[in-house]
């Protein structure tokens, strides 16, 4: 615990009923937050509390350096682009997931919404023959609608987000199978626009995709929104202390609703990204992405208890997962050790979060 500055005691012991000071700066109470010298660990904890990206960034940098030393093929631009391609869908879903988790919620339905959204795109364009652009927009709107349903279940029915989205996960996934008849749209039948995010351009002899660009742009956009807009501040406030948010006049339900709707929009865009990534439209393409998106958020240092975290942490979290997967496999480890390591990272990240939350009380 931090010590209270001695001046405070003097001030508190001052004459009872003294007249209010005319000039507060003369009598102002000098309070110094850290009374004594900090141990190195305390110093690191303080730093991590004020700069939450330090932890995941350090893990990412150290892992990158170690894997680059171990495997010569790891530290190439080519491999970097490959890692980014492998994690872009998880990272994008992670943006939606971060928004929800910052409000102290969780969205277990992200992957199901994405699948339903992309299957709808395919249905509109391929089976119903709508113009491709329209089909794309309608498909994204399916994602928005799913988000709105999640938001309504959470705010109107007052069902905890975990349960609400556990329910909609099943519902959306079932609808996805129903609409697609469980069948994929093969690459040959997928309109080029749907695959556009999988195409790209050359930089220094390495291929980068428009999907990667979109992903990074979305991170920058939402970093701006969370840091520099009132809506962003309110998201943190709702997740941090919902009662305080309500008492200060924030329309809590409206913030929650908007978060789920925006998450749905992001997931709709991710559906487009997924088609570009795998080339076809498969109703079973990314079922594991639910937990992967949560993993990215958690490893990125965002607290599952809400109100604390950075969107860029989620990008770092997704990259950490990608770097470990790539690095371990290039170093010749069986893929089971990727799973194993990610498990350790999750527990480590949450342990750090618990520790920091304790300091913060």
């Amino acid at each position, binding site marked *: 615990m931090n010590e*209270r500055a001695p001046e405070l*005691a003097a001030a508190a012991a001052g004459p009872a009923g003294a007249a209010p000071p005319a000039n*507060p700066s003369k009598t102002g*109470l000098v309070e110094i937050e850290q009374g004594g010298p900090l141990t190195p660990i305390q110093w690191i904890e303080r730093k991590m509390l004020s700069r939450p990206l330090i932890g995941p960034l350090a893990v990412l940098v150290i892992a990158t350096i170690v894997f680059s030393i171990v495997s010569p093929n790891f530290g190439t631009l080519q491999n970097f682009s490959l890692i980014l391609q492998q994690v872009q869908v998880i990272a994008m879903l992670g943006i939606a997931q971060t928004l929800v988790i910052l409000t102290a919620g969780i969205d277990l339905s992200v992957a199901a919404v994405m699948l339903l959204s992309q299957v709808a795109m395919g249905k509109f364009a391929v089976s119903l023959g709508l113009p491709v652009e329209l089909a794309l927009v309608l498909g994204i709107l399916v994602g928005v609608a799913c988000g709105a349903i999640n938001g309504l279940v959470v705010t109107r029915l007052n069902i905890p987000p975990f349960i609400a989205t556990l329910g909609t996960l099943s519902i959306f996934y079932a609808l996805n199978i129903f609409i697609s008849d469980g069948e994929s749209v093969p690459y040959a039948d997928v309109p080029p626009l749907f695959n556009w995010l999988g195409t790209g351009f050359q930089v220094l002899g390495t291929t980068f995709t428009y999907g990667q660009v979109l992903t990074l742009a979305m991170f920058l956009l939402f970093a701006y929104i969370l840091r520099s807009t009132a809506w962003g501040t309110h998201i943190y*406030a709702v997740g941090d202390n919902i*009662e305080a948010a309500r008492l200060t006049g*924030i329309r809590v339900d409206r913030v929650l609703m908007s978060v789920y709707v925006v998450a749905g929009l992001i997931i709709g865009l991710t559906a487009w990204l997924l088609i570009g990534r795998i080339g076809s439209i498969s109703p079973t393409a990314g079922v594991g992405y639910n937990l992967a998106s949560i993993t990215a958020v958690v490893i990125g240092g965002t607290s599952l208890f809400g109100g604390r975290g950075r969107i860029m942490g989620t990008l770092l979290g997704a990259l950490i997962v990608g770097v470990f997967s790539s690095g371990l496999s290039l170093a010749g480890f069986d893929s089971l050790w990727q799973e194993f390591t990610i498990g350790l990272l999750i527990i480590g990240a949450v342990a750090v979060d618990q520790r920091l939350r304790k300091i913060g009380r």
Partner: protein
Amino acid sequence: MTTTTPELVLEARGLVKRYGHVVALDETDFEIRQGEVLAVIGDNGAGKSSLVQCLAGAVQPDEGELLIGGQQVTLKSPVEARHRGIETVFQSLAVSPALDIASNIFLGRELRMPGIAGTVFRRLDKKRMREESLAVMSQLGLQTLQNIGQSVESLSGGQRQGVAVARAAAFGSKVVILDEPTAALGVKESGRVVKLIQDIKARGIPVILISHNMPQIFEVADRIHIQRLGKRVALVDTADIDMADAVAVMVGAKTPAELGLAR
């Protein structure tokens, strides 16, 4: 009965609040004058909390009327009370620990950048919010906080209280309600709150202080409203009563008439 005078900032007449069979407020009256510190005391169950919640807009009375500056109003929510200039520092403080001081002070009424940055890009004017937060914190003698951008969770209990009070004082409000401001604080920090109350008063804003801390009340309050069994049993100048009598009236051991009090 009181008559409406312009100097009454906030007034209540005949407030009734029932919770099922429990009558929390039984036709209670209330008034606070311009520029005074009014303490509200009462035993548990006397209706202090219900009274404060009615004044803060957190609950709505079943009967009776509220007047702000002589005008009858209804307060449907704390937000509406705030719009009308009644700022409440709730016992829970209603701060967001992970947000910084300036964000907390401006929570729910953020300032945006002028021009296109604010209207189109919805960009917050963090610089101005920090400057204005710093200004109000300074006026309240809290300027020595290291950094207005530091998170509230890095502050001590007393400092958090300071942030909540600064928020209340920041918005040029008509009246500030402090609900048990020292209940969760240590001795040293309680002393600090006394100073804060005096500083708010020095800004010309009247303060309603709900407290159990008698020495503190007698240190800062101009008048004392004694609540008992859902009614206001006395409204006295602090100078006209001593601590023992105030407590006696509060618990019903003495009646105000016995003490020769007007009400």
